[in-house]
């Protein structure tokens, strides 16, 4: 879904923004959990495969966490 990478980045940032009130550490975990639980694998793969440019710090942290868990698994 490379053509919609920008849209995925927007979605990830939007999720992160709504969890941000929990504080960065918790928000990163919550954002990663949300994307893991609700996104189709091709969407997760696409955002993990893409550049982090455009991702907020929390969203980037969440994607990094997903890269660690999903790819190691």
């Amino acid at each position: 879904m490379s053509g919609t990478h920008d849209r995925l980045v927007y979605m990830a940032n939007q999720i992160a923004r709504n969890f941000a009130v929990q504080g960065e550490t918790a928000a990163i975990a919550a954002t990663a959990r949300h994307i893991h639980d609700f996104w189709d694998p091709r969407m997760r793969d696409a955002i993990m495969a893409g550049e982090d440019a455009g991702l907020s710090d929390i969203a980037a942290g969440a994607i990094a966490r997903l890269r660690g868990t999903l790819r190691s698994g």
Partner: protein
Amino acid sequence: MAYEPQADFGTPEVRADTQVTLTIDGRRVTVPEGTSVMRAAAECGGAIPSLCATDSLAAFGSCRLCLVEVDGMRGTTASCTTPVAQDMIVRTQTPRLEKLRRGVMELYISDHPLDCLTCSANNDCELQDTAAEVGLRDVRYGYAGAHHLGQQPDLSNPYFLFAPDKCIVCSRCVRACDEVQGTLALSVEARGFASKISAGQRADDFLSSDCVSCGACVQACPTSALMEKSVKAHGKPERAVITTCAYCGVGCTFRAEMRGEQLVRMVPWKDGKANRGHSCVKGRFAWGYAHHQDRITTPMIRESIDQPWREVSWDEALAFTAGRISAVKAQHGARALGGITSSRCTNEETFLVQKLVRAGFGSNNVDTCARVCHSPTGYGLKTTFGTSAGTQDFDSVMDADVIVVIGANPTDAHPVFASRMKRRLRQGAQLIVIDPRRIDLVRSPHVKAAHHLPLQPGTNVAVMTAMAHVIVTEGLADEDFVRARCDWDEYQDWARFVSASQHSPKFLEAVTKVPAAELRAAARLYATGGNAAIYYGLGVTEHSQGSSTVMAIANLAMATGNIGRAGVGVNPLRGQNNVQGACDMGSFPHELSGYRHISDAATRRMFEQDWGVALDPEPGLRIPNMLDAAIDGSFRALYIQGEDILQSDPNTRHVAAGLAAMDCVIVHDLFLNETANFAHVFLPGSTFLEKNGTFTNAERRIQPVRKVMETANGLEDWQVTQALANALGLGWAYTHPAQILDEIARLTPTFAGVSWDRLEREASLQWPVNDQFPDGAPVMHVDGFVRGKGHFVVTDYMPTDEKTGPRYPLLLTTGRILSQYNVGAQTRRTANTAWHPEDVLEIHPLDAENRGLKEGDWARLASRTGETSLRVSVTDRVAPGVVYTTFHHPETQANVVTTDYSDWATNCPEYKVTAVQVTPSNGPSDWQEDYAGLTARSRRIAAEPGE
């Protein structure tokens, strides 16, 4: 069942702790204290003649036919207005009573046309029956004097007529309009002999009056003065079948009254627990679409969407479809396939579609229209309470002292429930409306909101947070409830957050545009006014923070202890008839039926063992993601049952591009809808009148849908899905939806105690129905939240990214109107178009004047996404800077204008906030004209060879 009128006990049922025993005509009868003598007599089988009494209305005591004699009382007394008393002795039939009744009846008949044989109410007329009951044999007065005969009927309403010469001025219609519907459109004009039933002002007819055509007056009329035109056309019904309405989420039950295969009329079922014998213009009257000429009853296919359709046999259509699906699967994998279940179809049909996708296609790419309406409700209430559903039954509203309506317009979208709500408001409950528009509830006859908070669209979370600020900082929270029922630490975190000065009403006023004092007063009333219930709709969910608002609402209810008993709660008003059921049945791509995540191995194993197939453990695509993936090429085929995503989903051009990119789009529907413009297969669907199954309404009430006539296409919808599954080699062998319901119960803990036989016996059940709640649960979270401790979630207000600016200075919000339903596929094909023939744009007088627009002018409505043209209605119902329209008509396609912005948690589209500009126009836009051409080309059906 054979045709019998519904039982009528004359006066309403009374509930009382004390029972009273009396004697009626020698029979001992025990009834609740406060019951009328008339009802007590009826309950023991001794109906007393009457004309002005009916058990849906308070006793009136005007017709003087129901007179009885009571020992110890002088003279005769009206049994309808006389309450029972302990050891009272009543006689309902004596020579004196006979003479009195006959005399009264003679007066009625002396001014009534004696055309019984040709009257549409013949043999179904209370006046006729009562004349027979009292033994009236002749009329001594003759017909030479003054009379009302020969008066012209009012035929203006498309569904019923008013014949004043048949009217006995019993006022049942007026009282039904007042007490049952709450519109107060009807009145008795003039006095004495000149008395006449009047709709609105003297110049009005029924159509031009405030009448909302609910039909309560028709149902209450004891003669043919108010009568369905369909009865006049087809004759008296000969049988009745009880079934459930297929319009909104209220889930009214009706008697479908039939002659042979002809539906004569739909009459609200008095024992229906959702509607309590009431209805609206859609459910009662708007069923003509079932036989509309546009109905497609033969399967059709085409190789590509630029070709005309070709009518084929079911076998050929299914083989073609299975071939396309198999080819896509072989080339692109299972995750290139998906389906959309329908909230208009039954639980059983919905369950089968998601089963077909998961077990047959091999993916979890299944979604439903709740994606674009109440998916945030599912997310928000599951997170906070543990269950993706409302907490109350509809009856609960009658115990509410404070009613909060947020982002909902019940009088238009859930009219039968709105009538219940208005009844409670007339009894004295207080009302808070939080809505950008001045909806009818804000001020209507005998109803006035204590507070209307006309917030800026998109600021729901800020308003909820400001209310929470008031409740916490003024010490109005119910901390005992919170300590007992919720996580105290989470509550404290939340309380600290909302108490911050930047969350005060004053600080947030600049954002919400709600006067701080008014918001403070509303918050105080909610927290301290007694039982406080929140009812909300799509004005809450269809925002970029829809899920946050749902959780913020739940926070408010928990903080004030307004949860877990009658009269309180958090109540999503569901849009479509079975949207609750569609969600319950596992229509979301991340969860199986009963809201269990697809990644849960134990749950998945249960389904795998039952279905004999391995399931994908990963969540699938949501509808907007499917369309994105289609454009990217990784999603190629879609089976859509009973939804029209091209018209209903946001950003029409994007939807069209997604559909056009697919190899196989299968539309299973009643009509060639807008989505079918991009389809390769059309499988004809069946109406709710043609099938068996169950719907689940907004109060979690599971109710039977019963087949009242044969299918026009030969198959019920569940049979079509089964045939498609079998064409793919799945070997399904259901012979009745009851078997599917058994499978649902087997695999879904909240439905464990539900069966077709039980529903036949008990009429309805409110889930959960299982060992813990063997008879269901009208009110949830009574002794504790489903998730354990109630979960407070801090919800931080985030402004939407959809911004107004110089080019797009206005905010568009969209909604619904009473007479039309959703995309209008059904209601546009009925006479309901008399009330709403086209979508119009509501615009404030100030904004209209600035643009040189007058009432009825064409205007161009443009956003960053697209543009369309429609006529304007200049009204101060909307605030300056806000415009409003509906999306019922494809010629307008309001969703050409709406954007891709959506709820952060669920992708529910942000229909309620679109930055737009409105400018004068001279007619439909180029896009509309192009689209009309596309539609015409797309709906071509090839002539059969040799024709």
